[in-house]
């Protein structure tokens, strides 16, 4: 197979840079404006809630997305998958936003602990103290899970995830140093092992982190499925973003060696994981709706009352869109079409994060999606694109010396 050597190196050109800077610029201005405008909103227990919730949603969504990419990468190794070898650098670059995203999140957590924002109800002072006016008996019953223990876990996630992601990347780059077509696969086997261990770590931490960072916003509420629901969401976000990136790179003359079948496979993943997400959504929603237990149903009650249209919209574009549009083989092989659906799903899952965060923070004060959400999203999107493309530039777009490289280069299904 002929490979154009000049296009093996991605160049983060001025045009792309300007695009990322513009997004960040617009976003930054909107965020500042948002803080000013939201500061005018006065209500009980409301102090810049929407502004902070937005900042948090964006930080979480993109971090989760890159975590999804890291998971996808680790899974490819552990499962001996060959089809995605030609797009491995794209997956790696996407996962490398993780340390940045986690830092932003960490900063936000510290601000919460300093009571600058009130995203986490349980961070409030005296919440477990019966003599305090803030006392909440339900939260007091589970306060042992929060506090220092919560911080310990948070730090553990950050350290573990970052370590695995960087290590997977390091081995991948090391493997490149061998001669093309060489038979030394030591670094590959290292990554297989690492990938398997990452799966173990991820299996536990993906659920617990979702409880810690998202579910604890609605501190009273609980749902055993919540971790897996969040996981399916971050997975599909990662898939849709990577698909978009691959198609964009191909449009710019890169990644010629990626066969149509590989992109078709990404389309299949998008279809399948959208289904998985819907399955999780339905399982959680239907069971809570059906049993109608007061402790649980409050979660959907607030969503039903104050976020009804958004709730339906999120379900519609994240389920019906990919299901109907990506069912046929031809639609998954039409890359413009695939990019269109990918964009919809990508935005849809950002809105899903909004749906997870807002009702527990902004609550009844919600007025619908506005420029604030859009602006914050654009800021993080710009930052994310910048970091991802910067990392894409740091290594050749095609891996060398990967045992499954030939399989992937000749993938035709």
């Amino acid at each position, binding site marked *: 197979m002929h490979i154009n050597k000049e296009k093996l190196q991605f160049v983060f050109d001025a045009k792309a840079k300007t695009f990322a800077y513009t997004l960040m610029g617009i976003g930054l201005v909107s965020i500042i404006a948002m803080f000013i405008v939201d500061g005018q909103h006065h209500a009980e227990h409301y102090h810049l809630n929407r502004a902070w919730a937005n900042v948090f949603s964006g930080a979480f969504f993109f971090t989760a997305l890159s975590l999804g990419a890291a998971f996808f990468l680790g899974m490819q190794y552990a499962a001996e998958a060959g089809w995605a070898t030609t797009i491995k650098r794209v997956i790696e670059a996407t996962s490398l936003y993780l340390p940045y995203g986690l830092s932003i999140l960490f900063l936000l957590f510290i601000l919460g602990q300093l009571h600058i924002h009130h995203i986490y109800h349980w961070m409030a002072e005296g919440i477990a103290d019966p003599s305090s006016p803030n006392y909440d008996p339900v939260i007091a019953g589970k306060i042992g899970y929060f506090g220092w223990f919560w911080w310990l876990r948070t730090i553990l996630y950050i350290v573990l995830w970052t370590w695995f992601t960087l290590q997977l990347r390091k081995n991948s780059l090391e493997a490149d140093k061998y001669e093309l077509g060489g038979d030394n696969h030591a670094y590959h086997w290292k990554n297989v092992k690492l990938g398997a261990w990452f799966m173990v770590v991820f299996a536990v931490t993906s659920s617990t982190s979702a409880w810690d960072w998202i579910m604890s916003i609605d501190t009273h509420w609980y749902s055993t499925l919540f971790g897996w629901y969040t996981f399916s969401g971050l997975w599909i976000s990662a898939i849709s973003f990577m698909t978009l990136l691959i198609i964009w790179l191909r449009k710019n003359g890169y990644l010629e060696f990626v066969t149509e079948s590989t992109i078709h496979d990404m389309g299949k993943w998008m279809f399948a994981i959208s289904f998985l997400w819907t399955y999780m959504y339905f399982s959680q929603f239907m069971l809570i709706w059906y049993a109608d237990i007061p402790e649980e149903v409050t979660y959907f009650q607030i969503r039903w009352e104050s976020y009804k249209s958004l709730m339906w919209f999120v379900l519609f574009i994240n389920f019906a869109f990919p299901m109907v549009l990506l*069912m046929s083989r031809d639609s998954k092989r039409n890359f413009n079409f695939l990019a269109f659906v990918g964009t919809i799903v990508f935005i849809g899952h950002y809105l899903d994060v909004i749906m997870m965060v807002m009702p527990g923070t902004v609550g009844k004060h919600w007025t619908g999606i506005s420029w604030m959400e859009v602006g914050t999203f654009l800021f993080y999107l710009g930052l994310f694109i910048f970091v991802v493309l910067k990392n894409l530039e740091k290594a050749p777009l095609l891996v060398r010396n990967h045992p499954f490289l030939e399989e992937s280069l000749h993938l035709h299904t």
Partner: protein
Amino acid sequence: MLKKNKIHVIFGDEEPLMNAVLELRKAGIRIKDAFTPFPVHGLDAAMGIPRTRIAIASFLFGITGTSLATLMMWYMMIYDWPNDIGGKPNWAYYYNMPAFIPITFESTVFCAAHLMVLTYLLSSWLLPGVPPKNPDPRTTDDKFMLYLELTDEQSKLAEDIAKKNGAEEVNYKGEIYIEPKY
């Protein structure tokens, strides 16, 4: 009256078969049929067989299943005899919908799968008691056979191409006479 020879070309492997098919088609020879012990990747395209549309049929059957289930549950639970069971809201289909999704899904799959399989069996005429469709019993084991109906002139050419590509046998199995079309 046009005389055509019925020819069985036997191969011992799928690769020579594929090469022969490609070359025969290039020479303008129509391949009437091929019999293989397993699906040979790309053979249908090489022979010029159009893609099957059975998946589209299945999709339509599936939609039928969805509609039938919806109609059934709406009629029975909402329209004909609404029952308040466990406080489930049965005054409108919309409110009761979460409880209807499982059966709607099952019915979709049921119709899509069974009606598609039925379509497949009938359109291929595969039914209990139907006599074997392969003229040479070895083609369900390890032989690959092309079936050709050719004029004498074409037969010679086809035989050469087949032999060149490693055909093990080229058997003439009688003749048929075709009324020329005017």
